[in-house]
């Protein structure tokens, strides 16, 4: 079967972006196209998948068609992929499948979200649309509350603590301070992170990712095309995905994400590797407790030991076996919902090509993973990448 490689990748800076949807997407797509080493034109694209929640509803319908029009891809078959915060993780998977199926040779996967042009009240409304509207929202829950329930239960079952979450926040702020594309390029002290404004007990402001504007885009190609376009392709050696109950209370356990466990198992098996082989992982830390649980669910830490993993600094840049969220993660790099999944792939693209600057390169990075979660774990996409094809 055909192998699939990333041959180009680009993204806007995350944060309060001055442009709207069209301008942000054009910027990310143009960077991605320009990053392809060989001659490349957008008209070579056979198919495109763009992830977005369409936050705010400004262009809720036919979002993707508008965006292709503003990136030189007018006429390319395209659709918006929506799986909440995992939208572009799934767009990446759809693009990978399009090539795997033999129906396309060059496919664009991307994502976009414009979040900061809304009033606080409208923003708060849209931040809660991806949980179970009827049962969770009516019980007062948006995602800070949902993840707070997970955190408190994890503390109770496994002896982890808020201090463990603070270590994650401090680490990701440190990594983000080195990333010129990050929303928050600022270190934070342990003491400050530990004493933040309480959003949803036990989660404080420093446990929560920011709401960011941003767009990200990657170009995928079948192996026979990829080798014409670049000498340094980044291979997608595994793609796993799974879903779970939408509402937290329907799941047998709330201290793990079954969708993450299933998706990562698939991706590892396809790539013929284990968690021990991963050099860097971009994991979905919408809240610090999400990263703590992800390190367990992805196999970097034993069940219940995510707190110890965080406390020991095992995920810090070039300090442990695996660097977790070298980009700063959602916590510091930012979380423009629909853009996050392919934004993680953009980071991996540059890391595995060993071209990351500002002291943020993971040493000798050969194998990487991205982990993109929708909502509180109802959907998840995991991808495994390598400098060598599996």
């Amino acid at each position, binding site marked *: 079967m055909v192998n699939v490689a990333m041959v180009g990748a680009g993204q806007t800076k995350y944060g309060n972006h001055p442009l709207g949807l069209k301008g942000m997407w054009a910027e990310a797509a143009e960077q991605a196209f320009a990053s392809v080493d060989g001659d490349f034109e957008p008209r070579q694209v056979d198919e495109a998948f763009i992830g977005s929640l369409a936050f705010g*509803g400004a262009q809720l319908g036919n979002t993707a068609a508008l965006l292709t029009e503003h990136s030189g891809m007018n006429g390319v078959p395209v659709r918006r992929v929506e799986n909440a915060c995992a939208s572009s993780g799934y767009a990446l998977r759809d693009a990978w499948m399009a090539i795997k199926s033999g129906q396309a040779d060059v496919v664009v996967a991307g994502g976009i979200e414009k979040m900061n042009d809304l009033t606080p*009240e*409208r923003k*708060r*409304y*849209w931040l*809660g*649309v991806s949980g179970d*509207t*009827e*049962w*969770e*929202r*009516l*019980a*007062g*829950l*948006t995602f*800070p*509350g949902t993840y*707070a*329930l*997970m955190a*408190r*239960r994890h503390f*109770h079952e496994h002896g982890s603590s808020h201090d463990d979450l603070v270590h994650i926040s401090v680490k990701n702020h440190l990594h983000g301070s080195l990333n010129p594309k990050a929303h928050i390029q600022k270190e934070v002290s342990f003491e400050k992170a530990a004493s933040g*404004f*309480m*959003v*949803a*007990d*036990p*989660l404080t402001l420093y446990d929560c990712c920011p709401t960011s504007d941003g767009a990200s885009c990657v170009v995928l190609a079948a192996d026979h095309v990829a080798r014409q376009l670049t000498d340094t392709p980044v291979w997608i050696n595994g793609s796993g995905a799974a879903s779970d109950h939408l*509402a*937290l*209370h*329907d799941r047998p356990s*709330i201290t793990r994400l079954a969708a993450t466990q299933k998706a990562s198992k698939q991706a590892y098996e396809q790539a013929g590797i284990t968690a021990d082989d991963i050099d860097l992982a971009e994991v979905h830390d919408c809240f610090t407790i999400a990263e703590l649980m992800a390190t367990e669910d992805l196999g970097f830490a034993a069940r219940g030991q995510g707190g110890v993993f965080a406390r020991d600094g095992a995920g810090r840049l070039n300090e442990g076996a695996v660097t977790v969220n070298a980009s700063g993660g959602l916590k510091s790099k930012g979380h423009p919902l629909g853009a996050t999944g392919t934004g993680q792939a953009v980071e991996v693209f540059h890391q595995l090509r060993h071209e990351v600057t500002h002291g943020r390169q993971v040493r000798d990075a050969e194998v990487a993973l991205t982990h993109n979660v929708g909502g509180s774990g109802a959907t998840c996409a995991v991808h495994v990448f390598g400098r060598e094809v599996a």
Partner: protein
Amino acid sequence: MDEHLVWHGYLLSHHEDFTVIQSPFTLNGTRVFGADSDPTTLAVAALMHRIGIESVTSVSVPEGMDGETLTAACGVEVVKEDDLDDCPWDLMMSDEAVVVLAKQGAEVTVPQLDVAVPVMADEHEALEQAWTKELHHQHVSQGAFVSEAAYMEGAEARLAMMGQQHGDSIVWPPRYGERGASEVTGMKRTGRVLSWTALSAAGAPSEFALRAPLLDGLSTVLLQLDDGPNGVFLLVDDEDHNVTMGAPVELVLRRLYAQEGFMRYGLKGRLV
């Protein structure tokens, strides 16, 4: 009067021929509704108590009570105006936060109870104004909301804790397409806290934007229900946020939120 007790967070007085249910909250000596109660929530509490003692199949309902909610929560038929003469039970309300459920023709006396939880006048007024604003038909949703159709579709599960028997276990809320599940079955309204959070007003969903700041945020609990399933519920009358892991909780009916002229009711957790 035979018996006085605290019931579903209210003061209940039981008589052979009638049930009186009163809000514990007072303002200047007058009984007033709590933050999320109204005549309908008091009426449901009265019916639930009486149904536990004897059969109540139909009831007359005064203007100002939500008959559909009473039916969904308690399984009683709400009698139409033309049939009132044949209705064995009447629900009545007063100017205060007091509701009476009485057998037709019963001579009712409302007991004067010593229990009183004073509320602050300005806070009480602000909450009532917030409810009025919420209920206005121009208070609209931007999209993801619980429509009347969705509310009624889930009403028996939400208001009467009806689940699906599936072998030895119960699925709640019921699922369409749940293969192997039998008819709905009523569940106990009790459970224990598996986890909890206190949300700041800023962290609460926009449906609660008007009231959450007045209540200093919201408290939500994840419960393991005594019949097996788990569920998430707002806590009622929990200004002190003093919930703990494993604490026993009973579920009582209260107002959840209003939008577009339509009040949504649901069960909330009450620490016991």
